[in-house]
């Protein structure tokens, strides 16, 4: 763990950072050099001094600078020289929501990201879009006070990096890109259709993608049903298994299955024309895709697919964190747990499915990891900066692996709790913070 420092305000000297001579040595900080001090996106010129009266776990900083940079004193910081700047941090922002009142209600739950605060260090500010004052470069939000273990409301400065768990419109995306550049992740939320368009161009991924097309007019239904016995109709932007329809081509008619408000609907339509008419009444103005249905493996009549969580670590490398099998409710078309399904550690399910040995399970698992990491890299090559992802895969009766969906809006590691793995749940959240820490200028030292 990198050494962390308490900041002692210097009530007298102006524009001064005073450190212990050993601190300077350990951090390769040349005292005579002309330095700037960076906290968040702000930088100020400083006079660097050394004094052995300052302990090795302390730095002393002029109160006026603490004021101008708005550095919370309750936190412990790492310091790192980069070029002609001394970084003090990390200072990480979590953009939680668009509205202040929602932030106020939910901010306490964010503590789950900081269960291992000691390894993150620095200041973490939770904020809403409403709390941003672009003129003052200030945010009205909450800073985590590690001494009291609570979030404290106040007006703070912009952080060095932003981890966002809400949706941004284009205007805000532009703003954040302008201010933070590549130090924000999950800024752009890609949809199902984009994912398909990007990944189908990659030869080694193409065969893991169910065929998909964007639904524009009834003709698309006709041609797609011509190719596939069963198709799914999904909203381009939806998640949590909502608004999904399954269409099965029978001898004489078309069968529709979907869940809405906890009720399973199932009925027949006689032709494509009626089907299109039904969808027109359902879709409103949203966009939908048509997706080839995979012949899912089922156990005891329950459909099974898998959710894998990926997260980047402090070095910026992707880590496959967990795989969870989701059992759909008997007869349901989706496997979403919220829709009444159940969950199981993915490896156990694999073993049951194919009656595998432990070693075979391990190889399956590796293969799956390999495919999805490939997919994620491709997504990033198409310009989306991700830090964590939730990926749904399926395995069909032919033992083929399919990538169903990738989600970077706010992939919820709650799935880990569904298999009672609290450790992984917190670890994933911790990993998100560590990646933000890397972006904030504090990558893992090698």
């Amino acid at each position, binding site marked *: 763990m990198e050494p962390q420092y*308490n*900041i*002692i*305000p*210097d*009530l*007298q*000297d*102006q524009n001064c950072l005073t450190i212990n001579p050993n601190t300077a040595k350990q951090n390769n900080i040349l005292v005579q050099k002309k330095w700037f001090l960076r906290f968040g996106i702000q930088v100020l010129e400083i006079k660097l001094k050394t004094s052995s*009266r*300052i302990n090795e776990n*302390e730095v*002393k900083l002029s*109160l*006026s600078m*603490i*004021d101008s940079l*708005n*550095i*919370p*004193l*309750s936190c412990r910081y790492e310091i790192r020289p980069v070029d002609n700047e001394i970084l003090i941090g990390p200072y990480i922002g979590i953009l939680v929501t668009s509205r202040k009142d929602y932030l106020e209600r939910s901010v306490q739950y964010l503590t789950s990201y900081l269960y291992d605060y000691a390894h993150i260090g620095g200041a973490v500010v939770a904020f809403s879009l409403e709390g941003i004052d672009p003129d003052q470069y200030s945010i009205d939000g909450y800073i985590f006070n590690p*001494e*009291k273990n609570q979030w404290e409301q*106040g*007006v703070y400065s912009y952080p060095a990096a932003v981890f966002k768990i809400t949706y941004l419109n284009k205007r805000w995306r532009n703003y954040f890109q302008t201010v933070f550049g590549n130090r924000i992740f999950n800024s752009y939320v890609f949809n199902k259709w984009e994912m398909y368009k990007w990944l189908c161009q990659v030869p080694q991924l193409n065969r893991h993608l169910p065929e998909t097309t964007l639904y524009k007019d009834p003709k698309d239904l006709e041609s797609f049903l011509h190719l596939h016995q069963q198709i799914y109709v999904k909203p381009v932007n939806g998640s949590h298994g909502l608004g999904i329809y399954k269409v099965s081509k029978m001898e004489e008619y078309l069968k529709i299955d979907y869940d809405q408000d906890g009720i399973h609907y199932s009925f027949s339509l006689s032709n494509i024309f009626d089907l299109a008419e039904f969808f027109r009444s359902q879709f409103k103005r949203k966009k939908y895709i048509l997706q080839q249905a995979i012949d899912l493996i089922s156990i005891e009549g329950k459909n099974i697919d898998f959710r894998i969580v990926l997260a980047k670590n402090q070095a910026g490398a992707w880590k496959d964190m967990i795989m969870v099998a989701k059992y759909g409710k008997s007869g349901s078309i989706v496997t979403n747990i919220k829709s009444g399904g159940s969950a199981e550690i993915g490896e156990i399910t694999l073993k049951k499915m194919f009656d595998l040995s432990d070693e075979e399970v391990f190889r399956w698992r590796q293969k799956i990891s390999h495919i999805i990491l490939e997919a994620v890299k491709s997504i990033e090559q198409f310009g989306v900066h991700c830090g964590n992802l939730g990926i749904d895969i399926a395995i069909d009766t032919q033992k083929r692996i399919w990538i169903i969906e990738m989600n970077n809006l706010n992939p919820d590691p709650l799935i880990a709790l569904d298999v009672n793995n609290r450790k992984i749940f917190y670890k994933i959240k911790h990993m998100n913070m560590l990646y933000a820490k890397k972006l904030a200028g504090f990558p893992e030292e090698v």
Partner: protein
Amino acid sequence: MQIETVNLGFIYDAKKQQHVIKRMVDHFRHLSKEYKIRLVFFTLENLDIEEQIINGTTITGNDIRQEHASLPPLIYNFAMHYTINQIEIMRNLRKMNNVTVINPINRFIQDIIFEMLTTLTGSQQFLLPSATFNESTLTEYLNNKYHTLFLLPEKTFHPPKAVVIKRFRKNHYMICFGQNGKMCGKDDLLDYIKKMMNNKKYILMKGIKYFHWGEGPLEARVYLQKGAGGEWSNITISAKSCIFSKDIFYDTKINNILNGFITNEIKNIEQTLADVSLRICRFLDFHIPFLGSCTIDYIFDEDHCPHLVYVGGFEQNQYLYLSMDPAVQYKLLNNAFHYLLFLANYSNEKG
């Protein structure tokens, strides 16, 4: 070398008070003309105390020039002097028989002032207990079960700011700077405070639950001056922060800020502030000669009663000065001029 004779002199700080001198030249041109009086502005760097010669800006009506002038008999000091050299010059100037300097010092040792004020009748209403900060007074104040302590710089809060120390849980204290803060164990408190202070002197004051505004307590600054009649008067009252948190000038009346939170009872707090401040100034005259300008700062408790936190001379905070209504800025300069004129006429009458 031609040495001009001038009637009144004004000392300013070339670096920190350019804003003052600019307006001063404009205003004083008219006054010089009207009263047929020659004025000089100068900095201490341009005063030769041995020779009693100034190299300054003279004003004779519309005529403004850079030239040498003899030391005038009456001088108003707008500046604050920090260096040992400057302080020595001011001391010598003050001790000269033929010169009277008004506001020779614009920053005071606050614990001395507070101690003086303890003997002003009725001062308990606005004066909180205070003492020079050291280990024994800190222990004493903590043992007194004060839930809050204020740590105030001995002479000026420019740049140092006040620190609020609040009891937090058992044996823990929050050391607060505006909205920012740091928790500190009782045993580490002394060490931490000492480190912050850099061996400079501070005053410990019993803290109060204050009326909060912005990032810290609402502060009022009352400006008082002696003017044409030689008597103290209240010039203006600013709502601001600058002692406990960042410099902010509120363009709102103290009365409006405070009364906004009371529905039925409307107290004229500004009147109270003005009355108390006038009493303070008249009292300080007994202990400190040649005061001409005073700024007196208060914060408010939850019942909106004012509590004294700082006494200074002529306004040194450029931001607060410039934020004031230009008419008030004019008044402050105008009073300085007229007070000197009053003293000049007074000594003339006495022969």
